[in-house]
């Protein structure tokens, strides 16, 4: 079975690579896993391993050639095996099994009909048309052997017999126009799940993105092997190809930090009353084995505050600010290879108990890589909490399309002045990062103080 060797993508920003040199010549046998060529990217040189055994049948891009990612640079196959037609090549001589070490002749595969049919017209018999329909063959690619180049059924069948060998290698076509080609349904679910279609590889005709590609991407399980995974470890020490999740974080955070004008407001929240209330609640929930976390209190407090500040429960939309009807709180969850944001939907209408149960389920599924549709994305505001790491305070990057994010530090016993006396209180730093296109410092300050007020008078959280 012929296998295509394609220009691998090393890192999300690589669009083309240069063939440094071939380590094998045409006709030379290759074993799976053996290095066959060296590729130069703008950052490094790497070796490509064969991902099939056989003979290096064709070299389609010579040393020094600059090749777009995903383009075929060579073909591995069995000696004498008929090879599928290669784009841009005309008919090759007929197959003769060869034992010579020189480049073996390539089997005749029906070549694109160029000299016979007038442009826009396909001259094919009805039976051939029917066979083409049945076999999914594009008649414009078939060369006819009938009178005046008329395509006959046998031509279609011969073409179909030659072509399917290509199907072993998944088509990874990037539309030349740069336009994202996706089905309407794929677009719909991409919007629902906050997936950027530019990052999704399409498996349909002409690289079209279908719903399954979006779903596979959203669940961080690529529907087809990532090209980079086929490539041998780079000789450069310490170079680690970006995982899908890191690619996403890199893309999103760069987009946010470079396009969203951030401003920051920090308030100190006295958490003693909230911590005491939490203890009482957890005592009451002990029999149900449910524990409300400090973060759950913050999720609810934030959701309640957002109800009073609809302008922060919004997105910047170019020529308008779109306020959201519902309050969905995204909560950043750390994973070994990065972080994801899980979404507590309608957090303002849920009890602390509901939020606690839901957060445990969401975080567990996210950490186990078993996130379900709806677990992620669609948030209207985000919370990032590093309190459990003992962090006093930090600033977070706005999570688009949100207008703001709260960065939560640890509750730390701190000397403070109350009624002229120095006393010790548990102080938690809460830092709002706001999108200045949507909101301003004064509104941000009022919102941050509303979160503070709710947490310092925590009975409001349970009433």
């Amino acid at each position: 079975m012929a296998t295509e060797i394609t220009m691998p993508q090393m890192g999300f920003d690589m669009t083309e690579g240069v063939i440094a040199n071939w380590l094998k010549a045409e006709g030379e046998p290759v074993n799976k896993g053996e290095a066959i060529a060296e590729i130069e990217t703008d950052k490094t040189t790497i070796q490509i391993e064969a991902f099939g055994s056989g003979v290096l049948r064709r070299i389609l891009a010579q040393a020094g050639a600059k090749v777009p990612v995903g383009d075929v640079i060579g073909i591995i196959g069995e000696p004498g095996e008929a090879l599928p037609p290669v784009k841009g090549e005309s008919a090759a001589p007929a197959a003769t099994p060869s034992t010579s070490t020189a480049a073996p002749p390539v089997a005749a595969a029906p070549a694109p009909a160029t000299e016979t049919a007038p442009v826009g017209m396909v001259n094919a018999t009805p039976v051939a048309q029917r066979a083409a329909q049945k076999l999914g063959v594009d008649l414009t690619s078939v060369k006819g052997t009938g009178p005046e180049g008329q395509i006959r059924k046998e031509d279609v069948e011969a073409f179909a017999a030659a072509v399917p060998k290509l199907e072993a290698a998944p088509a990874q076509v990037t539309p030349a126009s740069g336009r994202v080609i996706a089905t309407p349904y794929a677009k719909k679910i991409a919007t629902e799940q906050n997936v950027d279609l530019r990052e999704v590889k399409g498996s349909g005709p002409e690289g079209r993105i279908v719903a399954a590609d979006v779903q596979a991407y959203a669940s961080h399980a690529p529907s087809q092997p990532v090209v980079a995974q086929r490539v041998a470890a780079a000789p450069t020490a310490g170079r680690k190809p970006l995982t899908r999740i890191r690619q996403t974080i890199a893309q999103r955070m760069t987009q946010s930090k470079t396009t969203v004008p951030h401003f920051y407001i920090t308030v100190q929240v006295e958490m003693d009353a909230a911590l005491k209330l939490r203890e009482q609640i957890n005592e009451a929930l002990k029999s149900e084995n449910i524990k409300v976390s400090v973060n759950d209190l913050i999720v609810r407090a934030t959701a309640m505050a957002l109800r009073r500040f609809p302008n922060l429960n919004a997105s910047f939309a170019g020529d308008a600010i779109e306020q959201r009807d519902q309050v969905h709180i995204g909560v950043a969850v750390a994973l070994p290879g990065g972080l994801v944001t899980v979404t507590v939907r309608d957090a303002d209408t849920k009890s602390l108990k509901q939020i606690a149960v839901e957060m445990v389920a969401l975080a567990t599924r996210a950490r186990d890589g078993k996130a379900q549709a709806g677990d992620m994305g669609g948030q209207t505001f985000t919370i990032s909490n590093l309190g459990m790491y003992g962090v006093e305070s930090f600033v977070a990057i706005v999570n688009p399309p949100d207008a703001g994010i709260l960065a939560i530090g640890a509750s730390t016993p701190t000397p403070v002045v109350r009624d002229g006396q120095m006393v010790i209180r548990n102080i938690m730093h809460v830092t709002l990062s706001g999108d200045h296109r949507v909101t301003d410092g004064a509104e941000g300050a009022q919102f941050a103080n509303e979160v503070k007020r709710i947490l310092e008078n925590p009975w409001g959280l349970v009433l």
Partner: protein
Amino acid sequence: MAEITYREALKRALREELARDPEVVVWGEDIVAYGGGGAYAVTAGLAKEFPGRIRDTPIAEEAIVGVGIGAAMGGMRPVVELMTINFALVAWDQIVNHAAKQHHMFNGTINVPMVMRSPAGFGRTAATHSQNFDAWLASIPGLKVAAPATPYDAKGLLKTAIRDNDPVFFIEHLALYGTRGEVPDEEYLIPLGVSERKHAGKDVTIVTWGRMLVETLKAVKTLSAEGIEPDVIDLRTLRPMDLSLAIESLKKTNRAIVVEEGWRSVGLGAEVAASLQEQAFNYLDAPVARVAGLEVPMPYARNLEHATLPFADDVVAAVHAMMANKY
């Protein structure tokens, strides 16, 4: 419940309506004289049961339909039989310009409660006698068009058509006359303009009708064995066309194939595909695909006739291509 043929189901519908309403009459070529019951024996025996109400006509289709229209305007409920749908071409002016328009051109004061029954299809009858005019008929305002695929639907729809106050063209496919299916002894009616799910599935929506439903259900057997479950929607009536089930199904499967016997260009498949994308664009995960007949005058030879028309294997191939994202 007894299993009877499609042919027998039609006869029972006629018999019940003849017995129920004295205004119902049946006219057509050779429906009394020829072997007793028309070229395809649908009316066999009825002439004896209803003396004078089943009548042979001259070989003059324009007159047959024209007389039917006049009788219907005068208060009768004629069922006229055109021996094959190809002969409807001779009566096209009566069908399009008269039957379909009277009610509208006379401000609703006139009704034409007539049924035109006619077999469509093929069977080594060559180019002029093997045609499918489903799409033409379904595009005429003022006309209703039924194309039932099962004996059950044939009986229920024909009875409704006879009672309907508008002209109804009732397409009976030759290949269906001998097919069998369960039909209850007690009376029932099926409304015009209501589609039905004939096989429940989740993977791809197939919209079809008439003979192609039978072929599609054969294809479903093959596909089910492979683990692919199409959701099959039978339109049953082509005008008015009910696409509500098909759209509901498409929203679930995100893929649709329209299977028709007629010519592909400007066919009903094109109409269905256009409507589906208008009404469920955001749910489409692939272009709506069409399986249709080849656009050639029908050859006489059996193998060429077979090559021209779609059958179950074409449906299987289309579903395979759809599931492999090749459309």
